[in-house]
């Protein structure tokens, strides 16, 4: 089972295979991380952008809130968490 690294408050489709997930980091999230939308994975969503307080950044530290831009396909309709698997 994967570790939850992000709690999703809202997620919207931003383009083909691109999603913007807003919420709180439960663990540090880095640009380029590959995450899963279920605890069982597999990881299929790459963090291709991070913004917080209106600023683009490459790190969302634990406890911070922000928006992750995710590239890839969701395996469920409305994930409530993002997980680091393996």
């Amino acid at each position: 089972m994967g570790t939850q690294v992000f709690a999703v408050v809202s997620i919207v489709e931003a383009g083909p295979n691109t999603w913007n997930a807003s919420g709180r980091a439960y663990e540090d999230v880095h640009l380029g991380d590959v995450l899963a939308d279920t605890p069982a994975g597999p990881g299929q969503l790459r963090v291709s952008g991070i913004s917080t307080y209106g600023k683009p950044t490459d790190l969302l530290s634990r406890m911070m809130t922000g928006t992750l831009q995710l590239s890839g396909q969701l395996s469920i309709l409305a994930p409530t968490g993002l997980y680091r698997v393996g």
Partner: protein
Amino acid sequence: MRRLGRVMRAALFALWLVAVPALAGGPDYDAFSDAQGQISTPEQVLAAQELVRAPGQLEAVFADAAKGNHRALRVFQELETRFFPDIGRAVAERSAALKCRTPVVKEFATKDCRPDWSGLDFLPRTEAGSRLRNAALDAYKIRAKQLGVEDAAIIATINAALAVGGAAMVVQAAEARAAATGTAKVAPASGGSATDPVVSSQVVRLASRPLPRAVFRGTSEEFAGSAGLQRIGLTPVSEDPLVATVFATEAETYGRGVVYVATDADLAGTTAVEGNVLASLEREIGLQMTPSEFAQRAKIAIPASQARAILERMGHPIPAAIRGPAAVDQVLRATARLTEQEIQTFRREAAAAAGGP
């Protein structure tokens, strides 16, 4: 592809003091970035210098980013998170170096080694320019602190830099923001047609707002803030001491949890911005300063246990143990926010507990 190290990037960017001819037309993205918006090669770095100095070009890139252009967004991100922080760090290293021997960015220091920020005066007094300037100043603060530069010297340096043009930038930021969102005549970036309304709205979302009478922050004592917060030079605070107490209680996992109370007088001159994703839940706002600076300026600090005791007496009990972000979210959703009258009661009791006014 040739990528540049930090020192080389700073050195190349120091060449900004050399006059650069103005560019005509829209930004030439192919000159200063690759297809993804990365600024990597020396040629791209030199072209990026021209971009930043040329009137209107930086604003055009910023406007493209605000409209969701990924390439423009990445270019601005490169400037804000890599190149300008490099300048700030290089200035700190120079000002901390014995006899100022470091050749890099010598233009940014006077003969007695005090940093001279006039080297950044070419930055436009717009939100885009202000953000790049702040990126350099924030990185300077962090690096100077690491190098043992005295706090008073850092603060004096930053104040001097802000006196040059920063205050005006802050004032103009809101106007520039509105202009950026409404700028429709900017030429589209070549190779960057993808748009992203959510991320683009995030780029221009940093709306300044008035400071409340008091703000509260719960954290571990002497914690300099997470790496993520330090990178963006911002400190989240709450208008509600209950929220701060929840965070301070969670922080007890790592050290002495503490609730800081800062009045608008303590924070005079500070820019406050709207809160982030969970702002309504946390009654959160952002302060454009580092967490360490906030802790220094807050006149009242009480242990988390004392904050909980005050809230308990007011009829708002908080669990004595909160472990992890999920538990924080759970407690925040299970508790009501305080009324204005309750907030003032908490503030008075905290001041009394801290031995203050």
